[in-house]
């Protein structure tokens, strides 16, 4: 009867792995355990999504307590898809972690590192799978607390201040979310999301509900680095260990986007007072600003990791735009970009990790001549960069295509222009790196063969993600199909 308990196992497997990693003490053993756990989680997520796609939403009552009293895990197309993304990234990143972590962290911290990573995975999966608003907060804090630890493990001392800054901002965000949930509980007397959705409409006009909506939006906005609440992100990503950056960039903001979708469309979706115009007026300007401002800032960064971090904020802007349209096309675009960007950015940060391993730094100048010295890594970076720009035959192109279509559907020409300008800005910052890496001779060209290609254990995961971002740019029936079903489901049309 294991199959019936898959939803619980999804969270429990990494959760149990976490303390065991700590007990194992040795970095290598902890890594092996974490690897096994993450692959198991991936397999579970794949099974769950398949089950959801064929038989509809799954409801799992934790400990046998019936909702709305007990905690319900509820998996539909939307979070089934997000679960798969998170678990897949975890499964790809862990094989990579062995060498990278051994290089960047002292031996005695490695077991702790894998513990924190497993907890973070637990938290992210939990946030995604749960159907209970307060449970969501608990998992959110599990993932946040562990990610503060992970970021603080970075070699640079600035990692500490970055982690501290993130801790302060993240805690404020989480507290806002709890307050929002509390206010909702106050008026409805339930914490179950579906129950909330049923009970909210009659009291949609109440000031308490509006306040709850505001608190939830701001709180989630902080977690997902919604412009202008993104200030914690660039530092946190830039100074964290390479593996952590890749993992968080590909999952943490994506899960937050999912929370936003869940709150807006499942919980508040039925309430008329929060009509589409509210969303459009709020989210679209923020998305536009994020794309324009952060892409521009990215152009002026000298640290490539930081550059990509700013690019992440800009890319979140695209997803927020899609959500802002609140139409099937818009949500499809947001969800498909969530997936595509997870693949692309994850792959890019992994490629950067390979460079950091060999070069010790990812300052843009130090990449000179790398096209020759690390051809495979650099070419992966180029392909990932193409996907960020949205060159055809990459995943990024598909996202932009759908998003522009959504904007045209609304007749919002300004947004159309912004999306296209955003692509061009991305071209500028990606091209700065390409030009240096391929067309500037390396300073150490004659100083011997100091720099070689990264080991296979790192190259293969990098190429899996980059390959995915190419594959899903050519073959889109899976991503677009699921995203569209998810969008319809969120808008209440059934799966």
């Amino acid at each position, binding site marked *: 009867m294991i199959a019936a308990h898959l939803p619980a196992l999804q969270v429990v497997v990494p959760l149990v792995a976490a303390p065991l990693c700590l007990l194992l003490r040795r970095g290598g053993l902890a890594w092996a355990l974490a690897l096994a756990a993450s692959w198991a989680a991936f397999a579970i997520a794949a099974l769950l999504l398949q089950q959801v796609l064929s038989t509809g939403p799954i409801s799992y009552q934790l400990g046998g307590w019936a909702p709305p009293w007990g905690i319900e895990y509820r998996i539909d197309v939307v979070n089934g898809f997000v679960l798969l993304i998170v678990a897949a990234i975890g499964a790809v990143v862990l094989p990579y972690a062995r060498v990278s972590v051994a290089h960047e962290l002292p031996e005695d911290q490695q077991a702790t590192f894998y513990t924190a990573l497993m907890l973070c995975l637990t938290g992210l999966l939990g946030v995604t799978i749960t159907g209970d608003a307060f449970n969501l907060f608990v998992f959110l804090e599990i993932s946040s*607390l562990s990610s503060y630890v992970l970021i603080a493990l970075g070699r640079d001392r600035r990692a500490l201040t970055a982690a501290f800054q993130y801790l302060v901002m993240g805690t404020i965000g989480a507290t806002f979310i*709890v307050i929002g949930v*509390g206010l909702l509980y106050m008026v409805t007397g339930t914490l179950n999301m579906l129950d909330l959705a049923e009970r909210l409409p009659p009291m949609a006009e109440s000031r308490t509900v509006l306040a709850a909506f505001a608190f939830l939006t701001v709180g989630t906005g902080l977690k997902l680095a919604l412009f202008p609440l993104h200030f914690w992100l660039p530092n946190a990503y830039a100074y964290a260990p390479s593996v952590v950056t890749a993992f968080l960039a590909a999952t943490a903001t994506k899960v937050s986007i999912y929370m936003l979708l869940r709150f807006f469309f499942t919980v508040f979706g039925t309430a008329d007072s929060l009509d589409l115009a509210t969303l459009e007026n709020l989210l679209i300007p923020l998305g536009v600003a994020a794309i324009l401002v952060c892409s521009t800032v990215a152009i002026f960064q000298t640290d490539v990791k930081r550059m990509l971090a700013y690019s992440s904020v800009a890319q979140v802007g695209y997803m927020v735009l899609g959500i802002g349209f609140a139409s099937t096309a818009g949500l499809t675009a947001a969800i498909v970009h969530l997936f595509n960007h997870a693949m692309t950015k994850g792959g890019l940060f992994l490629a950067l990790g390979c460079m950091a391993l060999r070069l010790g730094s990812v300052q843009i100048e130090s990449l000179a001549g790398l096209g020759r010295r690390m051809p495979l890594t650099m070419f992966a970076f180029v392909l990932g960069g193409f996907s960020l720009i949205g060159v055809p035959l990459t995943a990024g192109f598909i996202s932009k295509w759908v998003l522009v279509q959504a904007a045209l559907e609304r007749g919002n020409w300004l947004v159309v222009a912004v999306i296209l300008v955003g692509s061009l800005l991305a071209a500028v910052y990606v091209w700065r790196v390409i030009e240096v890496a391929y067309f500037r001779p390396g300073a150490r060209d004659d100083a011997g063969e100091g720099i070689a290609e990264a080991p296979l254990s790192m190259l293969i995961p990098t190429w899996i993600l980059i390959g995915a971002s190419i594959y899903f740019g050519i073959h889109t029936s899976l991503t677009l199909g699921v995203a569209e079903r998810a969008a319809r489901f969120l808008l209440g049309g059934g799966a």
Partner: protein
Amino acid sequence: MDALGLYNYWIVIVLMMTGFYVVVSRGNLVKKIVGLNIFQTSMFILYISMGKVAGGTAPILAEGFETYSNPLPHVLILTAIVVGVATTALGLALVVRINEAYGTVEEDEIQLQDQEA
């Protein structure tokens, strides 16, 4: 019911704003943590207040008591307090590490050192 009748909600708001202000305005990292704590405490009180039923007692089945307070928010807030404690501990641990790395816990001095580096 006049405005003062809901005084515990006023306290929530005052605490929330106090905590928030401390987080934003203080440069000392320890004080920031203190502010964060006050901020979170306001949320605890919010939950506790909403669980209270006027005239109700602690939700223990006993002879002679008909009205009970809602136990759920109180239980929830126990969880939240644990989370808060963990956050504080982690935050303070980070401050200790920052102090070791920079020799100070003042934000402006840290920034100065970072710029020089």
